[in-house]
């Protein structure tokens, strides 16, 4: 047996006075994802919260199917669906106070909508009329981030700045399993831990980075385990159990707000749809796997638990579905209206003041537009 094969045998001689910075054990995640629905502890969750979670889950599923349909109708250039992951999205969208900030990735439009963003504004990037359809300050939602994990250091910097100003603001940053391989993930977690920043990182481990499964993404025991190396707690939660995700996130947010520093939460879930409408998921996973996860559906899990507690009946389900249909109908109607775009806006937001070069180019485009208008005028 080599030294490295003997558990605990490899101990470099520490310098005098050396002490471990923290005990690793309290930081380690449990081996199994935390479940709440269907356990005795679920009896303590407030009926109001469960009703709210249920309503948003049902609306979220409908939002996902409607947005996917809009891609087929050519109204959205692309839509990365979060069907199957709605529990993570809903919990993330509901867990924060108004003054807190949400840092979503491109798959997290639903979380932004649950937080209060207009669904049409949330889809502007994916429709293609502008890169972001909303003022981030309005609902404290950072612009949807397309590069992977690069929004995580933003969340750290914002939370750090808020703390420096004396505001008890928390930032919640969302990232996928693939994003945890990026350097920005590492740097963000390291900065957050060193600065003791009030940030919560939520990894939605949905099984695949486009086609690459988790086993080819990481050799870590779990993604939550990565937290230990930075000196922050890692928490593993069933990502389809909306009550569990909400509770774990709420604890992490509370801890951050109280000065306890950052937390890394891994929610184990599954992407039922393909990566986007441009992806063929049948090339990298069998139908049987998808069906197994469909049997662990976040809406069904919650409805079963609520019916057991007599907090939901057929009437409650119908009311939630009607609310969802109204959301979908409104989205359909408004997304089928053609966007009104002003090409001159291309030059508006590059710098605070246009440079001489941009003034020249704006004049060129203005002339081209005027010529176009003149040509079409002659044709009439």
């Amino acid at each position, binding site marked *: 047996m080599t030294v490295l094969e003997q558990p605990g045998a490899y101990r470099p001689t520490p310098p005098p006075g050396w002490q471990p910075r923290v005990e690793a054990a309290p930081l380690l995640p449990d081996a199994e994802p935390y479940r709440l629905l269907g356990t005795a502890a679920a009896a303590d969750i407030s009926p109001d919260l469960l009703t709210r979670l249920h309503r948003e889950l049902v609306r979220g599923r409908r939002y996902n199917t409607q947005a996917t349909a809009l891609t087929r109708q050519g109204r959205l250039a692309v839509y990365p669906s979060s069907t199957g992951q709605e529990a993570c999205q809903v919990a993330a969208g509901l867990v924060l106070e108004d003054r807190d900030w949400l840092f979503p990735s491109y798959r997290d439009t639903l979380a932004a909508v649950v937080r209060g963003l207009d669904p049409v504004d949330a889809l502007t990037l994916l429709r293609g009329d*502008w*890169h*972001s359809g909303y*003022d*981030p*300050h309005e609902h404290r939602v*950072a*612009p949807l981030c*397309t*590069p992977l994990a*690069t929004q*995580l*250091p*933003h*969340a*750290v*910097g*914002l*939370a*750090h*700045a*808020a703390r*420096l*100003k004396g505001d008890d603001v928390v*930032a919640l940053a969302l990232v996928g399993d693939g994003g945890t391989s990026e*350097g*920005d993930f590492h*740097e*963000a977690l*390291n*900065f957050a831990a*060193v600065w003791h920043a009030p940030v919560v990182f939520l990894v939605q481990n949905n099984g695949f980075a486009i086609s690459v499964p988790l086993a080819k993404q990481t050799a870590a025991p779990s993604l939550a385990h990565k937290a230990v190396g930075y000196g922050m707690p890692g928490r593993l939660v069933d990502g389809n159990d909306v009550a569990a995700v909400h509770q774990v996130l709420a604890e992490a947010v509370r801890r951050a707000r109280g000065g306890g520093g950052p937390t890394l939460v891994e929610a184990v879930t599954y992407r039922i749809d393909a990566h986007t409408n441009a992806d063929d998921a049948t090339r990298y996973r069998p139908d049987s796997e998808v069906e197994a996860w469909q049997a662990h559906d976040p809406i069904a899990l919650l409805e079963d638990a609520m019916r057991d507690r007599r907090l939901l009946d057929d009437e409650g389900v119908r009311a939630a579905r009607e609310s969802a249909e109204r959301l979908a109908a409104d989205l359909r109607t408004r997304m089928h209206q053609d966007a009104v775009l002003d090409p001159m*806006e291309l030059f*508006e*937001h*590059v*710098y*605070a003041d246009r*440079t*001489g*070069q941009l003034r020249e180019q704006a004049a060129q485009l203005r002339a081209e537009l005027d010529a176009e208008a003149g040509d079409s005028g002659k044709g009439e």
Partner: protein
Amino acid sequence: MTTAIGADTARKPATMAQALGRALRDAMAADPSVHVLGEDVGTLGGVFRITDGLAKEFGEDRCTDTPLAEAGILGTAVGMAMYGLRPVVEMQFDAFAYPSFEQLISHVSRMRNRTRGAMPMPITVRVPYGGGIGGVEHHSDSSEIYYMATPGLHVVAPATVADAYGLLRAAIASDDPVIFLEPKRLYWSKADWSADAPEQVPPIGRAVVRRPATGGRQSATLISYGPSVPVCLEAAEAARAEGWDLEVVDLRSLVPFDDDTVCASVRRTGRAVVVHEATGFGGPGGEIAARVTERCFHHLEAPVLRVAGFDIPYPPPMLERHHLPGVDRVLDAVARLQWESEWTEGSAV
């Protein structure tokens, strides 16, 4: 822009490094939202001591030693700017900034654009850049073309002690991200300078004629910025003996580019040489030469020439003097400006 703290009207010798440090200090004193962050900027005062004393005067929350991670430094600065701070980031050496390029290009440069103006990025990125100090590999790059090619960034480079102060104050005050290129080999250059002179703060985007031509018969404009400006001034002095009357334009700002000042000079002199340390192929000089040619073609007596670093990775320190454009190479280019008719008429001198 508020004036510098304290009365300091006397003009005294100061180095560019001192002026940069004073600019940071004055900006932090004038505006509590200005925060300095980077590797070694706190206790050590930066490896070039530009941030010396800031942590002591303003506290470690305002001048922060970060973990060693350039993407993290710039990425957290983005979040700080989102919350209303004005981060001033130090990249320790030019080539050390490359890990931060994704943050720079994907976020810093276009956050204003993406959010329709709702989220400006008032971030200053200080980059000690260029060669001539005997640095080993990755310590002497001239990376300005990467920054110049990214819409949304301002790119400035001071060449004098006064501009180092003034441009840095302007950069920090700007609501847009500014790449602030600090010519390392000019850090210890000295000039008589007073910190208490707000008129020394030039607006970003304005070039200056550093040495006017005097109306001599054989005239040309040397167009340069940063560490090559003193080289051009020396070359202009030496060229008098050859009968050349050279005007030196210091760009100060590569983005925005001051076409007016540059072209006015070239129209006066009729000839132009662009001088910089960065590589020539695909380098800043190509863009500048093209702009000058497009705007001044009928005034030109000769093609716009470029004197640049060779198209090689930055050389090891014992060979860098062969790479860096020096006075002789500039004078050789000036000699080549005696285009065809000049040669045939033999009108030199």
